[in-house]
Every structure is written in structure tokens, then in C-alpha cells.
């Protein structure tokens, strides 16, 4: 029962196995994203109220989804690293932090650009955007903590503690921002109401969300692989692999 767990914990095993998954996953991500983008940009009907600016949803919503999911991935990897002292989990956590931060940034930028045609201004303290901004700060804190320790081990553990605390806080932050927003603003135009969306608009969104999940997996695996190589650069298997591939290619 525990065998697979230990195997999964071995960076070397993960490096080799992920090398096999990576081409398929990348292909899937590329197909889903290109289909989703073409569908969303050209074939989905335009929104009755917002016109074509509504097409930004196909980037904004998947990016917001993954920004939030990415925080959970990071925090859970941190927890696994803390509890089972699994090196691989630490590396996943370290790689997940900047990816999540960048996805949050994408969600913020697209939300803000979308705000211009919708509300006439680039920044509105809307509940969704505000909680995204707080999420962005949470990511920045984890990244900053990660890079302020010289010892790799202490850096991993402390940022794992911080991301776990952040994970407990996220629902509270989202609820409190929602409450704050309803106090100060009667509901104006709401961005996304997925269930009430027309299926013709919703299906491309679904494709994009799936595509973003695959893309996230690809980016996470790629970054983790480099992290593995970096930390294991003195081990036999990394040296053998790198030097042999170098000889083979040149």
C-alpha cells in the first residue's frame, strides 16, 4: 500500500515518469487551449449586455479557477512535505508558488481590462477582483519567505507553514470580502453566473477550464523537474543523464 507512495516520493522516479507523461499532457493542453480560444473568440455568441468584451471570460475565469486551485495544490504539497518529510513535495510546493502567482496576475489583469468596457474604469473594488488581489498578496508572501532563507530545508518548511495558514484563511477572506462588498455596493453587473449561462457560451468556457488545468499540470511538472535537477545535481543519476544527453546531442 505504501510502496507507491514512497516511489512517488522519489525525485528520480518522478523525473523519469513525468518525462513520459509530459508530451501527452502538453499535447492535450495545446489542443484544448487552441480549440477553446478559437471557439471563445470566434464562435461563441456575443453577450446581450456586454457585447464582445464578454469574450475575456474565457481567459479570466479559468485563470481565477487555477489561481485558487493552485494555492491549494501548493499548501497541500507543503503539508505532505511537512508531515512525511517528502523532498519531492517540497519541490512541488516551491514550483507551484510562482505559477500560482502568475495565474493570479493574469486573472487580475484580464479582470481589470474587462472592467474598462463594462464599468468604464480599469479598476473597481469588486468582490471577485479584491479577493483575487488578496490571493496575489498571499502568494507573494509565500514566495518572499521562500527566498529569504538560505537553508533550503528551512525555506520549504516555513513557507509550507505559511501556505497552510493561508489555506485556512482563504475561505474566511473570500467570505469577508463578499460581505464587505454587499455592504458597500448593491449588485451591479455580475461577471460570471456559470449555471445561468447559455450552453453555447458555457461549453467553450468548460473547454478552456479543462485546458487551463492541463496547462497548469504541464507548467508545474516542468518547473518541478528543473527544481529536481537543481537539487540533485550532485547525484549519480542526474550527472549520468545530463552528461550523456550532452554528449549525444553535440
Amino acid at each position: 500500500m505504501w510502496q507507491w507512495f514512497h516511489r512517488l516520493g522519489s525525485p528520480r522516479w518522478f523525473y523519469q515518469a513525468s518525462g513520459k507523461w509530459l508530451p501527452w499532457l502538453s499535447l492535450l493542453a495545446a489542443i484544448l487551449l487552441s480549440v477553446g480560444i478559437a471557439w471563445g473568440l470566434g464562435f461563441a455568441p456575443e453577450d446581450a449586455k456586454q457585447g464582445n468584451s464578454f469574450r475575456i471570460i474565457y481567459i479570466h475565469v479559468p485563470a481565477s479557477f487555477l489561481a485558487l486551485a493552485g494555492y491549494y495544490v501548493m499548501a497541500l504539497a507543503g503539508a505532505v512535505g511537512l508531515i512525511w518529510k517528502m523532498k519531492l513535495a517540497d519541490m512541488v510546493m516551491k514550483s507551484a508558488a510562482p505559477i500560482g502567482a502568475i495565474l493570479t496576475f493574469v486573472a487580475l489583469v484580464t479582470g481589470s481590462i474587462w472592467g474598462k468596457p463594462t464599468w468604464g474604469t480599469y479598476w473597481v473594488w469588486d468582490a471577485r477582483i479584491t479577493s483575487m488581489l488578496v490571493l496575489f498578496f498571499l502568494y507573494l508572501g509565500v514566495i518572499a519567505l521562500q527566498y529569504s532563507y538560505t537553508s533550503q530545508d528551512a525555506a520549504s518548511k516555513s513557507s509550507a507553514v505559511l501556505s497552510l495558514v493561508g489555506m485556512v484563511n482563504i475561505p474566511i477572506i473570500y467570505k469577508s470580502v463578499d460581505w464587505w462588498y454587499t455592504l458597500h455596493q448593491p449588485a451591479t453587473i455580475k461577471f460570471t453566473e456559470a449555471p445561468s449561462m447559455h450552453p453555447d457560451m458555457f461549453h467553450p468556457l468548460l473547454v478552456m477550464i479543462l485546458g487551463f488545468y492541463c496547462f497548469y499540470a504541464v507548467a508545474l511538472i516542468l518547473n518541478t523537474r528543473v527544481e529536481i535537477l537543481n537539487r540533485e545535481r550532485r547525484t549519480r543519476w542526474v550527472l549520468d543523464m545530463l552528461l550523456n544527453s550532452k554528449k549525444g546531442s553535440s
Partner: protein
Amino acid sequence: MFQFDSFNEFVQMGGHGPYVWASYVISLAVLAWLIVSPLLRKRKLVQEVVRERRREAARQSNPVSAEHVSQGKA
């Protein structure tokens, strides 16, 4: 069904073109960076490791300088 009658209309997007295209271009560029940057880092890492190995190999073939280095470290 394609929603636009001409390519020009597709680019214009009923006046919302700049917003829509800016969102997509910025997002895709940033996402592409997430894929490109680990690849670049890996290339740099491989070069470093190869250089380290070469230095080590040179040190082993030249024991005098190796001793010098180890003394310098101590």
C-alpha cells in the same frame, strides 16, 4: 458558426477589440513564459553541471593544483 462576417469585424469586435485582444495577448504571453522559463533554466543548469564536471576532471588530472585548491579551502 463563426460570429463575424469579415476578418475586419473579427478584429474590431464591435468596438471591444482592443480590450479583448489585449487580454488574450498578455495572458498568452505570460503563460508562454511559464513554459519557456523552466526550459531556459534547465539549459543553463545543464551547462553549469557540464562546466563543473570539466573543472573537476581537470583538477583530477592535475594533482598539484588540486592540492592547492584543497589547501585554499581549508
